[in-house]
């Protein structure tokens, strides 16, 4: 039986434990892995990223969070949530191009209000694979310069075993690998 996981409400919990299989949606397929290892990443200063000073109503431009760099062998994955420490509107991208939290017409941002209406931050959760380290574009919506523009992250890092299988549909994954947990990295 497949289990679907994506950003469950409540405190962040790992998408699986060592030995569990994952099918990760990276457009246009479900890529399959087995969890080999996991490492908690508690909220702390090394996970606070500062996009720098931003003039009134200006943007930082795209800034890749290279400190979150992951290894390709073995493949690694991040499951992280974040919140804004400063008065910014942060656009989150998976890699340089895949904008997260979007509909056809709008792109939702992470702001200082986000944590107030979503204290567990589950609506900010993203899954990051090697090569897709988050890229942030922070905008200053105020009429004064922000000296810093910080986002604070926390979550889990996973070491994965690549099962070297990819499928187009959930049914195909289930037939081949059930039980398996489905999660989405984006790019739908």
């Amino acid at each position: 039986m497949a289990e679907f996981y994506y950003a469950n409400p409540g405190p962040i919990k790992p998408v699986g434990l060592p030995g569990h299989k994952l099918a990760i949606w990276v457009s246009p397929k479900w890529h399959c892995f087995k969890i080999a290892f996991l490492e908690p990443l508690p909220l702390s200063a090394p996970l606070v990223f500062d996009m720098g000073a931003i003039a009134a109503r200006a943007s930082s431009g795209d800034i890749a969070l290279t400190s979150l760099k992951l290894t390709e062998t073995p493949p690694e994955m991040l499951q992280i949530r974040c919140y804004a420490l400063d008065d910014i509107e942060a656009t989150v991208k998976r890699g340089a191009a895949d904008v997260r939290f979007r509909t056809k017409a709008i792109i939702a941002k992470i702001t200082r209000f986000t944590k107030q209406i979503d204290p567990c931050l589950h609506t900010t959760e993203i899954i990051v694979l090697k090569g897709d380290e988050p890229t942030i574009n922070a905008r200053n919506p105020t009429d004064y310069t922000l000296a810093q523009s910080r986002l604070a992250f926390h979550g889990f890092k996973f070491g994965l075993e690549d099962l070297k299988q990819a499928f187009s549909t959930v049914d195909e994954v289930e037939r081949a690998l059930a039980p398996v947990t489905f999660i989405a990295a984006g790019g739908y």
Partner: protein
Amino acid sequence: MDERPGIRVCKDRRSITAAATPTLVYQVTTGRTARLVKLVWYNGQAADITLEIGTYDGATFTRRLPRIRAITRQHDGLSELECPEFEFESDIYAQASAAADAPNDVEVIAVVTEIG
């Protein structure tokens, strides 16, 4: 109780240097409103003045709080308990019945909760 998400913001003090001249005290961030939660002022004039807090559309000043009597060469304020917490949908201005360049100016600083 207002359960809308809001963030507390305090910007620099502003100085009123001319009588009956609306002076920007707090510029509300576009797309938000601002509830005034705290106000502190100092009257540098040699006589008591009347201080008004309100909005200004470039032509008309509209008072939003009751007039404030500011005692000569004294500071005073409205604490969070006392402040009416009027919700401004545009920038917050102040004007004084008398003011001049420092040190005879009237200084005002506002603390607001921005809602958005």
